[in-house]
């Protein structure tokens, strides 16, 4: 049972996601048939799946949604923002319920109430009062006795539309005929007519005063039933109800079921169709009848049966002859159940463990070249060298294969965006189109985790500050609807996610002014900033371009938090903006968190790594070009003045005693301004498996982790932002 329940939880989530995406698509293009069909199917499938468990409110809610969508599909209803909101609310509620079901195994206590409220909004029942008890008046359905249901043929479990119609006593004067109206109820399953109060004697009865009340059950959707009563919405209550199967009927006495199926076979033979259809049905009927009779222990003359299946009359005569008195047959246990296939799911921790082992393997194999050298040039040495090379290749492939296990498409982090844009735009009274691209680009699960929040924030920021209100857009000669593009692709150093909008852009002059006002820069420094650098100020800590912080972009989570999160993961943020035309922000992240491509540098005999994503360039700078003003050094690189930082000093090592004419400089790109990092030597680039600092090392600031190089040497990977 729990496996089935787990299955349900997983499938329900998927269906809710699908429904959400389709609903968004449908709202963009109400004529999108594929979207409405997919949406309908998602609700329909959910209805079926929830029906398997004891969660009637859930079933009722999705049924109401299905009804609304059915009306939408048939053109009886239109998708306006209001209905879309209600459908979204139903989906959100469904998601909350799935969470509750997963954690508690049951729906919360208020589920019934919630389902009623949300369903009433969806079915568009004319009864708009609702909220509290929208189906008051329909208690009669619960009170239906088995005899009444049997009489109406309502034996199986079914979800029907229930109706109570209490006509206005004066309704005859306005030309209403309640009974005639009830005749119009589509797929009428039950109609009960009763006096609303005991009828007086004939002499005392006013023939023009309506005293009757009508109860009905219909197999049609609530909306269909409601449309019959659209002229008298105040006199009816309509809502879906779920009937349970009558006990002892559906599964019934076996002979009863056999009889029912046999009767159905007779009916099948009377159905119309072309000769091929009918031949096929006859063949199926013959085999079904033979099996049923066999199951009941009757001997079957198959040839006679086949002949009898020519028409219903012949089959009936055959059956009468074949079944004298059915001797019940004791059930033989049907063989043992077969084994079940198990799904293969991998826990992330196991992949991590695998990655750690590969790291150990890398270190272990790095001792081979040294051994090979010791062994010399003889055959042992040659052999070791060959084995070592082979190991290198295999470990590389192993690492690659293991990494792939963790790769997931970026569409995962895109998932919440459509809904975010839709809801936010609606709240801000802006029209915004979201274009997503490159969702199939893959990145490590850890990277996706890092990416999620910043991406949400960037999109919110575009909605909030980027895209202008429609009137402002119109005044600027732009289409009233703004566009936000989120596009992902792979680059050689990692994955890139771009968020761009065609909004107002960022005005560098305003940025400079704001920076001065906030005391981040003095007037001269602000003036010295290029336009690009001024725009980059949005990433400076404590900076906000809007005069007031909108609740949409989140309090305390500014653009600097986006930058910090991305850089912590070894990535970088770029921005380009043109006032009046829009803004483009790029997040560049490594493919994985665990494997980081670093530039290996040396200082005071130690090796350090700097993530490649932060390295803007490497060069030798003549010592004469480094200018010192008081203690601060700087160098002109290109047309920029870049501060110089000596890694030895930064890490508390003594200065390099050697005389040199030029320094090795690594230009680090830390957003805003660059930094020229003076190191003793610059070495190779290497892909290393970054391990967080453990034990005593954890207290050290300025390092993002340790890593082993291919030859086994240890490397400290610098966290430059923290260091500087």
């Amino acid at each position, binding site marked *: 049972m729990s496996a089935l329940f787990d299955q349900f939880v997983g499938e329900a989530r998927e269906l809710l996601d699908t429904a959400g995406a389709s609903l968004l698509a449908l709202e963009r293009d109400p004529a999108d048939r594929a979207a409405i069909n997919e949406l309908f199917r998602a609700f329909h499938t959910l209805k079926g799946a929830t029906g398997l468990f004891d969660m009637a409110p859930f079933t009722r809610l999705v049924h109401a949604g299905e009804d609304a969508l059915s009306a939408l599909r048939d053109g009886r209803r239109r998708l306006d923002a209001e209905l879309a909101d209600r459908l979204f609310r139903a989906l959100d509620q469904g998601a909350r319920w799935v969470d509750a079901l997963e954690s508690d195994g049951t729906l919360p206590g208020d589920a019934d109430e919630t389902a009623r409220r949300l369903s009433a909004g969806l079915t568009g029942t004319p009864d708009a009062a609702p909220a509290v008890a929208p189906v008051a008046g329909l208690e009669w359905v619960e009170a239906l006795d088995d005899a009444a249901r049997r009489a109406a043929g309502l034996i199986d479990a079914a979800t029907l539309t229930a109706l109570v119609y209490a*006509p206005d006593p004066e309704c*005859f004067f306005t030309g209403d*005929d*309640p*009974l*005639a109206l*009830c*005749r119009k109820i589509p797929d*009428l399953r039950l*109609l009960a*007519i009763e*006096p609303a109060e005991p*009828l*007086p*004697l*004939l*002499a005392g*009865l006013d*023939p*023009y005063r*309506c*005293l*009757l009340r009508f109860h009905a059950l219909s197999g049609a959707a609530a909306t269909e039933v409601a449309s019959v009563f659209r002229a008298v919405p105040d006199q009816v209550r309509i809502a879906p109800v779920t009937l349970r199967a009558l006990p002892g009927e559906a599964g019934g006495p076996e002979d009863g079921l056999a009889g029912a199926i046999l009767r159905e076979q007779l009916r099948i033979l009377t159905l119309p169709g072309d000769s091929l259809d009918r031949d096929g049905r006859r063949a199926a009927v013959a085999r079904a009848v033979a099996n049923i009779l066999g199951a009941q222990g009757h001997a079957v003359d198959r040839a006679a049966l086949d002949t009898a299946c020519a028409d219903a009359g012949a089959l009936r005569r055959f059956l009468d002859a074949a079944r004298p008195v059915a001797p019940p047959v004791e059930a033989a246990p049907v063989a043992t159940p077969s084994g079940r296939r198990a799904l293969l799911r991998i826990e992330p921790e196991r992949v991590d463990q695998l990655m750690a082992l590969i790291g150990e393997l890398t270190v272990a194999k790095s001792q081979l070249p040294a051994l090979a050298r010791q062994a010399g040039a003889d055959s042992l040495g040659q052999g070791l060298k060959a084995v070592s090379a082979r190991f290198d290749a295999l470990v590389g492939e192993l690492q690659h294969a293991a990494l792939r296990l963790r790769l997931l498409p970026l569409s995962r982090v895109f998932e919440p965006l459509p809904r975010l844009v839709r809801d936010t735009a609606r709240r801000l009274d802006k029209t915004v189109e979201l274009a997503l691209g490159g969702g199939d680009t893959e990145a490590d699960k850890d990277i996706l985790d890092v990416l999620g929040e910043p991406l949400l924030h960037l999109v919110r920021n575009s909605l909030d500050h980027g895209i202008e209100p429609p009137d402002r857009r119109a005044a600027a000669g732009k289409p009233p609807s703004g566009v936000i593009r989120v596009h992902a692709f792979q680059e050689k150093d990692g994955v890139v996610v771009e968020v761009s909008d065609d909004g107002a852009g960022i005005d560098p002059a305003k940025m400079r002014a704001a920076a001065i006002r906030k005391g981040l820069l003095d007037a001269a420094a602000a003036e010295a900033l290029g336009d690009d650098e001024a725009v980059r100020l949005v990433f400076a800590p404590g900076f906000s371009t809007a005069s007031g912080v909108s609740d949409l972009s989140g309090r305390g989570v500014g653009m600097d938090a986006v930058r910090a999160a991305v850089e912590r993961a070894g990535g970088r943020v770029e921005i380009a903006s043109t006032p009046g035309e829009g803004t483009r922000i790029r997040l560049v992240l490594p493919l994985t968190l665990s494997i980081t491509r670093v530039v290996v540098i040396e200082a005071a005999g130690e090796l350090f790594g700097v993530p490649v994503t932060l390295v803007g360039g490497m060069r030798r700078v003549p010592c004469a070009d480094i200018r010192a003003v008081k203690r601060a050094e700087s160098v002109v690189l290109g047309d920029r003045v870049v501060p110089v930082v000596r890694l030895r000093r930064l890490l508390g090592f003594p200065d390099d005693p050697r005389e040199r004419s030029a320094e090795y400089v690594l230009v680090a790109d830390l957003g805003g301004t660059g930094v020229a990092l003076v190191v003793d030597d610059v070495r190779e680039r290497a892909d290393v498996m970054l391990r967080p600092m453990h034990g005593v090392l954890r207290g050290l600031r300025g390092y993002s982790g340790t890593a082993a190089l291919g030859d086994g040497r240890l490397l400290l990977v610098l966290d430059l932002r923290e260091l500087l």
Partner: protein
Amino acid sequence: MPIRYEDGLARFEGLCAVDEALPLAEWLEATEAARVDLAACTELHTALLQLLLAARPALAAPPEDAFLRRWVAPLLAG
């Protein structure tokens, strides 16, 4: 004439509307052991049904109309 009155029998035919209510009420009040024949009735106005339910005349013939036969006739038969 949608309702024809013959001695103790009222024959309902076709569409029997609300304007039949007053004559039917008078006839039902005046007639001992009244009987109604609904066989040919295709529409029975609620006002008429209500009168029949209050007066409970014997049902001489049930309606042939499927809707009336299924949902209305059982109320009058008892």
